[in-house]
């Protein structure tokens, strides 16, 4: 047995090294190359902390920093409870239409972020037909940022919380009931502690996403400055990579805090689904189900209205002066020379990124969770996996240029090809995928592994025959998450596409900038339709997998 353990342990450690190597090449080394510039001046001379001193001396910095914090915090505090109630209604009640609501809750993730921005401007902008609802306030500013971010981040929070709420041990609820605990008490002492990890993850994921996003503040932020737009100003506006790197490093702070908090909570999280667990099945409660149904219907309506406005925007001739409808905007070659080809590039890129990414991420998460010992190595991989969330896409994209385009880099040949876009996308969306996988794994009792090892079954076999089937749903979710994000990602890949690998999401930004808003919306709708089709496929597959692999959950 000792020998077997050793072999497993060595194998897992070797695999952990590979995972660390992957993250090193796709993430840490490029970022290090870029951040190294923060200590140099424009001529490449080492200047120590001079750039930082200069940056922290900028009077507008304090304003940006403060704006970033409060806007991100406000939007997070709105989106996490919303997503929690929504996920709770779907996972823990018997209300009708749960499947439909689940699908609708994910809709915002299907759309490039420019699409809700366009919709919000058409709704609440100075010419918008619902601007009276803002009561004289302007959509261009914090209000617009918060609304757009809540919309954009909702599915991310929902995905994490939904995974967290998916599994519970019925015995805990039965015990609480027997002990005479009221419903509120059961919720506070059983339900909430069980999903604590998910809530904390969702909170930090959303907070960091908002803090590092520049797309939304750029389009709808008006005069409102945040750190991410500061990066944009330095890099795109002034081509000052050194100062851009400085701001990029400041932006890493929230992720570092998130990492620390995550570790802290994780240490206190016990496996929910022990090997003897009995899956929780929600009971019918009329009033609760009705209230939650109304809530979900309201949220879903808001989501659909925004999407509907965007779809309408893709059909009109010239907002707001010629509202006649036309399909002409879908003939993209009129607005962008690459026409439909960018769409097919995107499709190929997203399929590759999702398939490769989901395997890499799931394997990495499994190693982090299931390797015994090797604390340090696991910590390194987990820390690396948390970084992408905190890195603005712009910073990641730029760092890829500096790293992969450096003369003498043996990987230089992927530069300008689809492969670098795939690699970049996997790295960019690594964190949430990693957290989702980890969340699913954490709910499995380590006892499975102990039993296996005492039965002299190798960890790999246990993984293949027990863990993988049991977490197949989460795996599928990760595939889907990677796919839809790859379909819409812009800020990193805008520096990396080559003459023949232009992406649809980049075309959207270009078309919008050139004033072809309708064509931009049309391309956005095409992407939504594609991702929705993928979602249908995903649901069918999930239902099939559910029948195949989740039978054990029934009592």
């Amino acid at each position, binding site marked *: 047995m000792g020998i077997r353990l050793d072999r497993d342990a060595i194998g897992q450690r070797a695999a952990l090294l590979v995972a660390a*190597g992957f993250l090193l090449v796709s993430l840490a080394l490029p970022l290090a190359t870029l951040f190294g510039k923060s200590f140099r001046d424009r001529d490449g001379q080492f200047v120590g902390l001079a750039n930082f001193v200069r940056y922290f001396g900028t009077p507008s910095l304090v304003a940006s920093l403060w704006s970033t914090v409060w806007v991100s915090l406000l939007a997070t505090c709105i989106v996490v409870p919303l997503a929690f109630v929504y996920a709770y209604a779907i996972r823990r009640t018997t209300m009708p239409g749960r499947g439909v609501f689940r699908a609708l809750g994910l809709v915002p993730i299907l759309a490039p972020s420019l699409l809700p921005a366009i919709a919000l401007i058409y709704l609440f*902008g100075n010419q918008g037909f619902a601007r009276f609802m803002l009561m004289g306030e302007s959509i261009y500013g914090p209000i617009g940022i918060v609304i757009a971010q809540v919309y954009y981040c909702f599915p991310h929070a929902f995905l994490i919380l939904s995974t967290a709420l998916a599994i519970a041990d019925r015995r805990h609820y039965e015990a609480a009931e027997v002990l005479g605990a009221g419903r509120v008490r059961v919720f506070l002492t059983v339900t909430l502690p069980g999903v604590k990890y998910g809530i904390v993850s969702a909170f930090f994921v959303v907070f960091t996403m908002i803090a590092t996003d520049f797309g939304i503040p750029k389009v709808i932020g008006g005069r409102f400055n945040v750190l991410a737009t500061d990066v944009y100003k330095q890099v*795109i506006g002034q*081509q000052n990579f050194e100062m851009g790197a400085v701001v990029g490093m400041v932006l890493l702070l929230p992720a570092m805090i998130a990492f620390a908090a995550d570790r802290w909570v994780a240490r206190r999280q016990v496996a929910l689904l022990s090997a003897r667990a009995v899956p929780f099945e929600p009971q019918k409660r009329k009033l609760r189900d009705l209230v939650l149904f109304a809530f979900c219907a309201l949220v879903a309506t808001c989501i659909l209205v925004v999407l509907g406005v965007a779809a309408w925007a893709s059909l009109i001739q010239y907002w707001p002066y*010629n509202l006649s409808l036309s399909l002409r905007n879908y003939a993209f070659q009129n607005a962008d*020379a690459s026409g439909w080809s960018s769409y097919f590039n995107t499709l190929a890129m997203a399929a590759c990124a999702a398939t490769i990414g989901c395997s890499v991420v799931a394997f990495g998460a499994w190693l982090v969770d299931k390797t015994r010992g090797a604390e340090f190595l696991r910590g390194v991989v987990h820390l690396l996996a948390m970084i992408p969330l905190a890195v603005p896409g712009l910073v990641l994209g730029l760092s890829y240029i500096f790293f992969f385009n450096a003369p003498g880099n043996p990987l230089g040949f992927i530069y300008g090809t689809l492969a670098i876009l795939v690699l970049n996308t996997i790295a960019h969306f690594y964190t949430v995928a990693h957290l989702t996988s980890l969340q699913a794994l954490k709910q499995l009792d380590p006892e499975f592994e102990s039993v296996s090892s005492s039965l002299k079954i190798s960890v790999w076999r246990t993984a293949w025959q027990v863990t993988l089937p049991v977490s197949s749903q989460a795996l599928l979710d990760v595939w889907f998450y990677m796919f839809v994000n790859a379909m819409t990602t812009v800020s990193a890949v805008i520096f990396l596409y080559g003459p*023949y690998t232009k992406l649809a999401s980049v075309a959207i930004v270009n078309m919008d*900038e050139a*004033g072809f808003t309708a064509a931009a919306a049309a391309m956005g709708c095409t992407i939504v339709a594609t991702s929705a089709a993928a979602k249908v496929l995903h649901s069918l597959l999930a239902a099939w997998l559910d029948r195949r692999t989740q039978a054990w959950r029934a009592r």
Partner: protein
Amino acid sequence: MKNSFTTIGKTLTAAIAVLAFGAGAADAQQRTRITVYTAIENEQLPVFKEAFEKVAPDVEIAWVRDSTGTIAARFLAEKDNPRADAIWGLSVTSLILFEQQGLLADYKPKGYDKLKPLFKDQTAPFTWHGIDAYAASICVNTAVAKAQNLPIPKTWADLVNPAYKGKIVMPNPASSGTGYLTVAAWQQIMGDAAAWQYMDKLHENVGVYLHSGSAPCVQAARGEYAIGISFDMRAASEKTKGAPVEIVVPTEGVGWDMEASAIVKTTKNMAAAQKLMDYSSSAEANRDLYSKYYNVVADPDAKGTAPNYPAETEARMLKIDLAAMANNRDKTLAEWSKRYDGKSAPK
């Protein structure tokens, strides 16, 4: 462990390579393919490409096109190992920056001598030549102006009229070359101190500082704001699409930028790149391409025929010292952010 890492690394690399070249390779041919970076309008790309390839059938253009700031950032980030062979249509302010860093090749194209003086690099090394110029003007939405009873401005000075409070949009000079150009033009017209006083007053009227040079005019065209400070090119194209905009070229004079072409020093396809420069500076390109889309072009004989451009632009273009403007940039932007960024959060 090291071994297994390298093996897996190699396998992965190989897999990625197959993926990359499978998707990236276009039809094989003997033509020399040159990668050309550009910021010209998207719809012009196929037209420019076709016209050049007709003249030089042995060369093929592979475009990489994005907005000025993005392409410039990308080119500079790639400078240790440049990927572009040539540039055809990127703002000359960016090209001057590239020249200062020694990234462009010294080449006087065939059409050089004939071009208007403004449109050629007059000091050695001779790296770039301009193809067209566009001016930072004022786009006024006439429908909004009428509905809100706003006068149509004629000059920069008119813009500080309190009637325009919150109704003007302009590019943030820290985000956009257009924005900086506009500020620099004011400094030149009014002198430094007076220009800052002017901007203090203008700040009261500015609703939003936007992050791109074209956005203000697009927003004005949509009626989101009454007045946008932007390039005339964007205004003209919005007007052509049916927006109720009028282009005002302030009588004090306007700042401008030009789109220019150059060869990247490290190109391995020098002959093909030179052919491109010869064509880019030719009378044919000026007549058949540039003058179709722009009002002010490099060749003195070519007459701009693009619709909806104001006629007076060329006469009102300021005499600008581009090098001095580039040198003052950091100082001006620092002062600008101190004055307007810090307090730019809405009340």
